């Protein structure tokens, strides 16, 4: 097991590469998700604003 993690003496090179790859893959999913939620919320807000305007003109 220790042999596996030491990667023949190249542990710091190998595992830092894996770590960086993991971070990049995660960022690539987290950012679009956040962006999508914000976009939907933004459209919802503009609908609310429009509905509010219509209400104002009636009264």
């Amino acid at each position, binding site marked *: 097991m220790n042999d596996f993690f030491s990667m023949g003496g*190249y542990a710091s*090179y190998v595992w830092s*590469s894996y770590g*960086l*790859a993991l971070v990049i893959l995660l960022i*690539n999913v987290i950012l679009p998700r956040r962006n999508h939620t914000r976009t939907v919320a933004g*459209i*919802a807000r503009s*609908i609310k604003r429009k509905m509010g305007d219509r209400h104002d003109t009636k009264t």
Partner: protein
Amino acid sequence: MSSAPIGASFTFLALVTGSIWGKPMWGTWWVWDARLTSELILLFLYLGVIVLYNAIDDKRTASRAIAILALVGVVNIPIIHYSVEWWNTLHQGPTVTKFDKPSIHISMLMPLLFMAIAFKLYYFMVLMMRARTEVLQRERNSSWAQDIARNTGL
């Protein structure tokens, strides 16, 4: 436009992990070798696409502008591919994409192909996620987009 940030991040990953492995294998983090330099230019092309898109307010004009930039960028792809044949430097010659039998050992070729396909699929998944958001943003005044917002956002 949905594709550029993914491409930029993957190119960055290739450059940095290549650099990390270059240190123990070649004894240096970086050399101005043709493959490395053309790959760095690829990263800058991706960043250029992102910056150009954000610099133009009218998104239709912006899309047209980055489409042209992307076409210019395609020129770089064969340069990257053949860079290891045209210029002899530290980087090894091609080991997989040649007409001869791949010179890479089968125990390395299999995981390499497997991961290449996995990254391709991952790219496609993220691309679809980003494209969905972009379409929704552009069609935010249409009734179907407002229905989605009403059902999930309110």
